[in-house]
């Protein structure tokens, strides 16, 4: 029986549409995976010595202190990206397999997920280092097992709380608040959680305490097994959840005429689809990206030129996360758009206005950067001007070459889609990011700091002046690429 399952799995992996992408992307993914493995490995080997050198105390205790954050962050990553096993068992239901076998297979499969064993790259070397540094081998072993078991608990927790947004987000927000409180030194949740993890190590009862997570894991496995066994019906656990739909008018947008029609649609697109919502949330997170630069927490980011870099990202979060994928957002109904009474010009302008509105709002919201001095906020404002005047065109232009259909209802490829590695879009990032830095550096170092900011703003305004011409050019490219785009969107992955 398992031979069949294995065979199916093998084929589904190697025949997946995403697997047949271009070679460059595959190589890049391998490098990414290797990079992460390397980072985890070197952290595993090195963190003991780093912590010791920094004089933070007993390295094991330090790791234990932060374990709670690690675990919750892991859960968060899983929740966002780990694929659920239930989706592909539908065709197996009426086959001559016992239901128990199907459930065992589906749940068992998740155990082998990368999300589980990547942590081993950290914990195995770390544990070995602990033993070589004279920690009691047996104690290290019980600790190691207990912690790894907790990650597997996460695996099953994630399966059971799939699609429970209402439970999940508050937990993450709560933890973020605890993290902030701890950073400020007001309240330290780890004083309560660290002893739990310490107990797995501390002799003589470490082994006994380590049994608790093991029991928890068994409990979770049994519960999720039962849960799936019970809900393996098309109208039960396998049913896709339907949100209740509400008709919305947005009549205030009517004053924009045809443009308003598209804007209404785009707002609904963002509101009602998982994938676009995630993108916009990511865009909002970009607002805080600047904190890395302006608080001086990372040394290499301290040059004034990096301020502009941050300014472009802070004000352009929406532009990069959403704008980048125009027109792929409309991929599932592109034939409709192409045969309706729509001028390309209006279609593109509506997306452009959306990007511009979002950029302006983001810039206003990020005025709290004034706290870090006027230069910080100045960098963001001129970054916004450049984004509106130049980058907004560039993302729309680049979009014409991005021909990957987007599945709006799934989050699967929200990061690292293969289109990011399209050569043409790669080339377009140069004027998007590098050019403003050069313009700024030229003004800043050759004339005066203020001239640098002015130069960036001026190039943005210059771009805006040529709006008509650029739009005509983009329209032409969209028209030229129309048939290829239609064909590509047909091949849903």
């Amino acid at each position, binding site marked *: 029986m398992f031979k069949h399952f294995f065979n199916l799995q093998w084929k589904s992996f190697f025949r997946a549409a995403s697997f047949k992408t271009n070679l460059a992307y595959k190589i890049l993914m391998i490098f990414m995976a290797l990079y992460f493995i390397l980072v985890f490995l070197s952290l595993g080997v090195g963190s003991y010595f780093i912590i010791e050198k920094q004089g933070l105390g007993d390295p094991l205790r330090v790791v234990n202190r932060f374990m709670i954050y690690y675990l919750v962050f892991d859960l968060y990553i899983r929740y966002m990206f780990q694929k659920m096993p239930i989706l592909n068992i539908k065709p197996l239901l009426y086959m001559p397999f016992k239901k128990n076998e199907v459930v065992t297979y589906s749940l068992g499969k998740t155990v082998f997920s990368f999300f589980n064993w990547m942590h081993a790259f950290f914990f195995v070397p770390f544990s070995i280092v602990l033993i070589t540094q004279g920690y009691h081998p047996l104690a290290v072993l019980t600790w190691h097992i207990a912690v790894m078991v907790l990650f597997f608990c996460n695996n099953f927790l994630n399966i059971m709380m799939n699609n429970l947004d209402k439970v999940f987000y508050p937990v993450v927000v709560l933890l973020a608040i605890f993290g902030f409180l701890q950073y400020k030194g007001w309240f330290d949740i780890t004083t309560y959680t660290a002893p739990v993890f310490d107990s797995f190590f501390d002799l003589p009862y470490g082994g006994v305490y380590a049994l608790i997570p093991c029991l928890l894991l068994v409990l979770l496995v049994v519960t999720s097994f039962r849960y799936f066994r019970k809900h393996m019906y098309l109208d039960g656990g396998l049913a896709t959840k339907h949100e*209740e739909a509400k008709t919305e008018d947005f009549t205030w947008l009517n004053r924009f005429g045809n443009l308003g029609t598209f804007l209404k649609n785009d707002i609904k697109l963002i509101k009602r689809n998982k994938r676009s919502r995630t993108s916009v949330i990511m865009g909002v997170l970009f607002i805080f990206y600047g904190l890395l630069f302006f608080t001086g927490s990372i040394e290499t980011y301290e040059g004034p030129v990096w301020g502009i870099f941050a300014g472009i990202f802070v004000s352009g979060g929406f532009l990069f996360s959403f704008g980048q994928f125009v027109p792929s957002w409309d991929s599932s109904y592109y034939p409709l758009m192409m045969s309706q009474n729509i001028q390309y010009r209006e279609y593109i302008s509506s997306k452009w206005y959306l990007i511009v509105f979002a950029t302006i709002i983001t810039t206003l919201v990020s005025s709290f950067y004034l706290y870090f001095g006027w230069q910080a906020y100045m960098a963001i404002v001129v970054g916004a001007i450049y984004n509106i005047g130049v980058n907004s065109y560039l993302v729309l232009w680049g979009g014409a070459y991005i021909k990957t259909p987007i599945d709006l209802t799934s989050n699967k490829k929200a990061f690292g889609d293969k289109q990011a590695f399209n050569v043409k879009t790669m080339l377009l990032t140069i004027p998007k990011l590098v050019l403003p830095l050069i313009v700024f550096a030229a003004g800043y170092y050759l004339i005066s700091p203020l001239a640098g900011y002015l130069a960036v703003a001026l190039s943005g305004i210059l771009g805006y002046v040529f709006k008509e011409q650029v739009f005509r050019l983009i329209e032409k490219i969209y028209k030229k690429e129309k048939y290829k785009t239609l064909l590509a969107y047909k091949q849903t992955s």
Partner: protein
Amino acid sequence: MISVHDITKVYGSQTVLNIPHLEIPKGQSFGLVGNNGAGKTTFFSLLLDLIQPTTGKILNNEVQVDISEAWKPFTSAFIDETFLIGYLTPEEYFYFIGELRGQNKADVDALIGGFENFFHGEILGQKKYLRDLSKGNQKKVGIVASFIGNPEVVILDEPFANLDPTTQIRLKQIIRDLASDKDVTVLVSSHDLMHVTEVCERIVVLNKGEVVRDIQTSPQTLRELESFFAG
């Protein structure tokens, strides 16, 4: 209304469509039948400029469709679910299409009000997005949306497929009413020979990309078609 000149569509070494000449006069109800792969959807896609012809041209009311976009205001179509916007409710979708076709809300309401019978209480006010409707109900929405804005050319690909018997009968009546308007040209494709013979004045049979029969519908047409397809 529509005239086809030397249209071919070639993929690799395979010619999927080859129509030297075809005229569809204004007001005609035109049926297209053929087996899978006969080129029906290819023909409709060419008409809507969704794919490029390898050679030849199609004129829709004197507008060459792959050069100018001026055919769009008077042409509407429902080919498949890629003509639907999944995250909209049916009402929102109708208004969206209406706005694109210069119809205000009241116009659209008046039009869809006439189809309540056809919708059978399963479309309007259901608190569901289009993506959550059944295939048949999605089809009803797409078909009715293609009537918005008084189009002069209506193209429906396989409109009867996935519909329940009651709805099929109602749809036949709707298409007949539409076809009786001498300003509206209706193009319908179908696998169901009976349905097309009932609603179309003229039936063209495609086989492997070529026109093999061009029939003015008469009482004998159904038998003629059946003997052709029985092969």
